[in-house]
């Protein structure tokens, strides 16, 4: 029996390394326990050393890519499920193309969940200006991801916000980017971040880009689920916008057509003359 400890930071590399050794030594899935971040406690602290890597086993590229996503899922069974599929792949050619295999379908679904979480993190992280008077500007955000997505998503922020320092703090893992260097640290409680005046302007934009005549709340919540709202500054306006929408539209409909402002006639005359000149 092997108990494989997997760290919270660097999970992907640790899992892949262990899986390679185990599969090359022919260790079957029922002989392996995966212990993420010491969650199993002391009882399993004395892990049997992993077998050495004796020969490289080939696995389809599509599996390796899928595994790189699935390891970040929050399902405690993720490592075992991946290893079980890897085990089957030794003898089942074409398994990865079988889009209807239940085990693979489950893993694909988990992969999709991580994809989605990563996507939502890119979308919904909201930085606040720390207003430090350094040459590089500094920003920080608090975010609560569904899966362990900080590590695979942080490089996106590094590519995008390379000319500033930033931190994304989460209960899971915290990412820091200082002077161009990205590093990961254990998760933490929500830090106190200074107020940022830009949030009010952003709220103004959110309220005014909304078209009350097209109210469609379910379309909003399916893409921006409520669980994210507490960390989105613009979300505080949502209730008011929905409540006031009908009255606003009614007002537009009831308003009697007004007379054009005085300058309109003059501008139109001028424009007609100009356009006549053109031809």
């Amino acid at each position: 029996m092997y108990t494989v400890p997997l760290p919270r930071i660097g999970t992907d590399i640790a899992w892949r390394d262990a899986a390679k050794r185990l599969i090359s030594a022919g260790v079957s899935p029922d002989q392996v326990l995966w212990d993420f971040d010491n969650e199993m406690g002391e009882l399993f602290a004395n892990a049997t050393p992993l077998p050495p890597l004796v020969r490289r086993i080939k696995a389809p590229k599509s599996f390796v890519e899928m595994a790189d996503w699935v390891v970040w899922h929050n399902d405690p069974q993720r490592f075992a499920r991946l290893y079980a599929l890897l085990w089957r792949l030794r003898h089942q050619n074409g398994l990865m193309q079988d889009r209807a295999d239940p085990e693979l379908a489950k893993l694909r679904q988990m992969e999709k969940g991580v994809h989605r979480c990563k996507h939502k993190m890119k979308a919904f992280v909201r930085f606040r200006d720390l207003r430090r008077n350094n040459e590089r500007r500094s920003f920080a955000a608090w975010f609560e991801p569904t899966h362990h997505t900080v590590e695979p998503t942080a490089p996106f922020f590094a590519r995008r916000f390379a000319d500033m320092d930033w931190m994304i703090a989460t209960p899971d893992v915290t990412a820091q980017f200082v002077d161009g260097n990205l590093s990961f640290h254990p998760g933490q409680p929500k830090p106190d971040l200074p107020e940022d005046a830009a949030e009010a302007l952003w709220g103004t934009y959110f309220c005014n880009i909304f078209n009350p005549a097209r109210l469609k709340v379910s379309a909003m919540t399916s893409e921006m689920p409520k669980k994210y709202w507490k960390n989105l500054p613009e979300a505080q306006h949502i209730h008011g916008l929905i409540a006031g929408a009908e009255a606003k539209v009614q007002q537009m409909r009831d308003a009697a057509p007004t007379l054009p402002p005085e300058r309109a006639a003059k501008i139109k005359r001028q424009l007609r003359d100009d356009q006549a000149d053109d031809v």
Partner: protein
Amino acid sequence: MAKLDLTQKLAILSDAARYDASCASSGTTRRDSRDGKGLGSTEGSGICHAYAPDGRCISLLKILMTNFCIYDCAYCINRVSSNVQRARFSVDEVVQLTIEFYRRNYIEGLFLSSGIIQSPDKTMEDMLRIAKRLREVENFRGYIHLKTIPDAAPELIEQAGLYADRLSINVELPTDNSVKAYAPEKNPATIRKAMGDVKARKDVAGERSYTGKRGKRFVPAGQSTQMIVGADASTDATILSHSTRLYGDYKLKRVYYSAFSPIPDATVKLPLIKPPLVREHRLYQADWLLRFYGFGVDEITASRPDGNLDLDVDPKLAWALQNRAGFPVNVNKASKEMLLRVPGFGTRTVGRILSTRRHRSLRYEDLLRMGASLKKAKAFITALDWSPGGLTDSADLRARFAPPPEQLSLF
């Protein structure tokens, strides 16, 4: 008039911009700022950073430079004859808003349009100043969409293409006659010429010269346009034929359909209606079928004699219901073209069917796991363990899909 502060201007000038449907920020070149000398990145597909309660994606800071306008388009809140409050951003204000919003991860970039002030050229020049400042002074590498003023000089439009990821020129209404009636200062021929110029310029940029070098980057995310639906009497057949021509002639990336929506201070010329949102949705579905599913306009609009799409069922289902003789199709044998025509099968499902059936024959359950919507598809397919029997030709098949008559409410 009291001087407006930034918040007031932003309120007025985003309110004025919300009638433009597009907020897309996808499909441009990949860029990043890893060198530490600039700000921003674009990586294929854009990101929706928020959703408004109208369900629409907020990806860009979508604003007007100014809502002063000398034109008098009847459907538009900014027309010269409207009493809406006017405002104008300075170059600096737009640049700062864009950069500060971007740094906080609120947006992918800027979608700038404008009312026409003084002259089309003057307006375009001012918009260019903003784009240039963003690119050259702020080293901004995020997304920029400029709504082009069609009457502006071609050189100005050409310059815009060097800064922008996308240019758009709205055709506004589905027919030339409607444009004449409701946007009297606009000229459909000029709009088409401007789109033609952008296409020609982009074609040149894509070619390699004899030295093997590519031309300068020019609107990498292409051009798009928008048509207002429901303001005039055009049918869906007219609208979709127009789109097909636009996609073909100008290689447009997207045609957006915008349900005519109530505006404050409407004109007597164009009474307000309830925005035809379902119709807009059906048009997008039909547009998709035309571009990715191998359907022709005639096929899609043939199901009803009045040339409009069926509002109760989606256009693919409507077509299949009318053409039941071709169904059911065998998912284990049918061609890709035919599978794409099965209601409830998307392009992804079809891809999965094709790849899996090389290894084994498919059952009903398999299709479920591949993401097919069998509620729709089951009447139109056979699988290893599935045959629809008499379902395909049953008289009440349409009724199974069409929603029960809706309760009407007063508008």
